[in-house]
């Protein structure tokens, strides 16, 4: 009969559609960008690394991971209320449009593709289909628009160039821009997406402390100063998580935290260098998963400042034995740094920079050349933290070079305030996390694009500012990399800020925990972690 082939074909088409609908959403393949004239700027992506089992071991399902966490400093369910930056505590439940790797590569996540207009007056995001929030509602363009509008209304850093947001279709939205600025990637990579339905149902106050996201785990409960609990979300769009749940514990004391690890009541902790060294000696696995640079900012912008003279700034750098400080006071964790970027693997690292290594004789010589043959007096503005012995080490090294240092220790609140209102002498500050979105990180910690908001007493060279403005509006990876390296060289040549050390983000684990962090990634993919049966 003539109908049979037609029916058969129709049946095959329907079957094919059904199979395609039931299949797991596939990862977005990497495309090598080529830009025909007038076409949108193609997406920059990195191929997401598929989850791999450690050699010789098969991941096991089950168990509840107990992990030490920092107490949240922002409401956990309201992205527009928190500072840009990875919030480890909510990582199990909340996800982002995309992530940014150590070299600036962008990894698709909830968004699979984004395209800029040739003139960068808009960007469209295509969302991954089939994603559900923990409350059962679907991720779509309208929900993402709602999230982005709230972040925009809260005037978060990165939204300054936005003009409007449109929904193109159910899974595509467009953000219209007055101009392109790299910091807008902060929004996509560092602000998670929450359920609009849940928020409108529960109200601001309740929803702020009950996050509903799309992550591999759903939020169960939060108790201030105690713990946050998550349970596996079986409706997760990606590969199903191995764990039954995650319990984040808040510890006020590092001794208690270390003891908890040794007792087995916690599986992963984030110790400081001293405790990490002790645990390493006891045989626990200790990993370095990132760095945070600490920099000395001289008050070179103040009238009459000794640091207006580059020779004095160079003398300070030569006078301090950074390697010794890292080896002894930091127990070998972290690195001495001689340029703004901590690690050769990170964006902006310039291998041509040799660095000013410890040379106290050279330091004295430079001081004499600058007109201070008998030394000088200065102040070190520091803040209350665990590794304050380093302040004493700075004081001692500078004293040997003829620089008398008075240490002024403030609370963190006061310290960040005087960064904006003005300081005298040297200002010690952690520069934020290396790896991940370094450009936005430089914006927040080294440059600050708005006048008066950065280190107001430190004078930056015009070339640095000019290069940074150029970096912010450059999308091409190769050009970005060249600019970043040039900026590192300018920083080295002018010593406008004195690079000091990069402290490592450390974690210590008991035996039986696997895949906590993926090599080269600076965010936590909680779905990867698994525990051996003995820890269940």
């Amino acid at each position, binding site marked *: 009969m003539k109908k049979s082939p037609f029916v058969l074909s129709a049946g095959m088409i329907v079957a094919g559609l059904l199979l395609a609908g039931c299949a797991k959403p596939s990862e977005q393949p990497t495309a090598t960008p080529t830009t025909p004239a007038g076409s949108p700027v193609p997406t920059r992506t990195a191929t997401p690394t598929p989850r791999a089992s450690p050699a010789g071991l098969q991941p096991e399902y089950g168990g509840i991971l107990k992990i030490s966490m920092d107490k*949240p*400093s*922002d*409401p956990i369910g309201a992205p527009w*209320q*928190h*500072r*840009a930056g990875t919030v480890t505590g909510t990582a199990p439940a909340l996800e982002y449009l995309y992530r940014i790797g150590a070299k600036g590569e962008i990894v698709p996540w909830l968004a699979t593709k984004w395209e800029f207009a040739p003139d960068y007056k808009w960007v469209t995001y295509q969302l991954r289909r089939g994603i559900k929030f923990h409350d059962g509602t679907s991720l779509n363009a309208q929900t993402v628009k709602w999230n982005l509008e709230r972040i925009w209304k809260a*005037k*978060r*850093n990165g*939204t*300054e160039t936005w003009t409007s947001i449109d929904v193109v279709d159910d899974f595509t939205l467009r953000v219209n821009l007055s101009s392109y600025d790299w910091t807008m990637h902060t929004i996509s990579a560092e602000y998670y997406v929450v359920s609009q339905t849940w928020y409108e149902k529960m109200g601001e106050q309740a929803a*702020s*402390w009950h996050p509903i996201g799309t992550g591999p785990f759903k939020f169960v409960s939060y*108790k*201030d*100063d*105690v713990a946050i609990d998550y349970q596996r979300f079986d409706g997760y769009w990606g590969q199903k998580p191995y764990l039954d749940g995650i319990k984040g*514990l*808040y*510890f*006020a*004391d590092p*001794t*208690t935290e270390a*003891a*908890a690890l*040794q*007792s087995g*009541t916690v599986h992963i902790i984030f110790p400081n260098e001293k405790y990490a060294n002790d645990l390493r000696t006891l045989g626990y696995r200790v990993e370095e998963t990132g760095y945070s640079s600490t920099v000395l900012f001289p008050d070179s912008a103040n009238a009459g400042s000794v640091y207006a003279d580059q020779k004095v700034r160079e003398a300070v750098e030569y006078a301090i034995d950074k390697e010794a400080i890292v080896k002894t006071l930091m127990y070998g964790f972290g690195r001495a740094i001689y340029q703004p970027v901590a690690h050769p693997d990170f964006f902006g690292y310039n291998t041509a920079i040799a660095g000013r290594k410890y040379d106290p004789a050279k330091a004295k010589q430079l001081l004499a050349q600058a007109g201070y043959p008998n030394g000088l007096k200065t102040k070190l503005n520091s803040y*209350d933290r665990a590794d304050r012995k380093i302040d004493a080490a700075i004081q001692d090294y500078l004293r040997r070079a003829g620089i008398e240092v008075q240490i002024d220790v*403030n*609370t*963190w*609140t*006061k310290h*960040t*305030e005087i960064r*904006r209102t003005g300081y005298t002498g040297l200002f010690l500050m952690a520069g934020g996390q290396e790896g991940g979105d370094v450009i936005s990180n430089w914006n*927040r910690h080294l440059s*600050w*694009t*708005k006048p008066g*908001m950065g280190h107001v007493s430190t004078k930056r060279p015009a070339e640095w500012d000019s290069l940074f403005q150029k970096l912010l509006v450059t999308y091409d990876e190769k050009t970005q990399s060249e600019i970043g390296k040039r900026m590192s060289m300018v920083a080295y040549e002018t010593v406008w800020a004195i690079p000091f050390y990069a402290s490592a983000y450390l974690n210590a684990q008991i035996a039986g925990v696997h895949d906590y962090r993926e090599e080269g990634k600076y965010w936590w993919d909680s779905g990867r972690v698994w525990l051996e049966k003995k820890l269940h």
Partner: protein
Amino acid sequence: MRRLAQALVVIVIVSMLVFILMRVVPGDPLYVYLGDDISFLTAKDIEAVRHELGLDKSLAMQYVDWMQDMLHGDFGYSIRRTRRAVMDMITERVPVTFHLGLLAFLISFIGIPMGVVAAVKRAKWWDTIVTVAANIGIAMPSFWLGILLMYAVGLKLKLLPLYGYTSPFIDFSMSTRQIIMPVFVLASTGIAASARQTRSAMLEVIHQDYTRTAWSKGLRERTVVIRHVLKNGLLPVITLKGMTFRNLLGGSVLVETVFNIPGMGRLAAEAVIAKDYLVVQAVILLIAVAVVLGNLLTDLVQGWLDPRIRFQ
């Protein structure tokens, strides 16, 4: 009535002092509220927030506003970015602190019979043991004792949980096991101080004429010690216990930190460091109320013990 009025005056003065102190301490609370990521805010935006928080008003007006809100049960919101209601933060922690504080307070009364025995058996080995133990208890820092116990009892011997707090209404067994070490640490100083104070007070009274008379009358040792010596010697001890009453609400930041207990002490310490002025003011006020209540109770008990005070 007079005592109540005095108590009220004390509370008001304390509230003024803590209010002024929090404003005088370096650091603008506005920047705590705004956080670090404020490059997008103009000076006008920042001043608008200052106005919204009422920080542009005079100190006197800010104090009046705060007291008015407090009297209506509105303790305000934390200026830290968590923006949690101060009342919620306090009501979560008061039961925890009260539970531990009450147990420690009651257990510290063990020091009284210890002091009695030391006084009665003066210069004997009982006296030596109690005196040495009391001196160690007073001299030993509580956080050090806590860490020592945590290491020995919790980590090495695995007899008790290392840290944490569970409400007794949720899991009584776990709650009991978890609070043994922190309560012992909290109580140890109180036991030691009570023992020493009781011993000193008893020794003073033991040599009084009326005590000698009581012995001479042929009364039994127990009657002399308890009815004549202890009753008269307890007055300074009761004063001492009254002073520690504030711990029922104030907590101990060191013990709570070491044993990871979400109590009022930690809340207060963190709020001071973060310049979270509304939290600090509320907590200090609460402690002031506890001190005033403690003093009132002390006076009542002393009045019961000593009729002369009652009539005064």
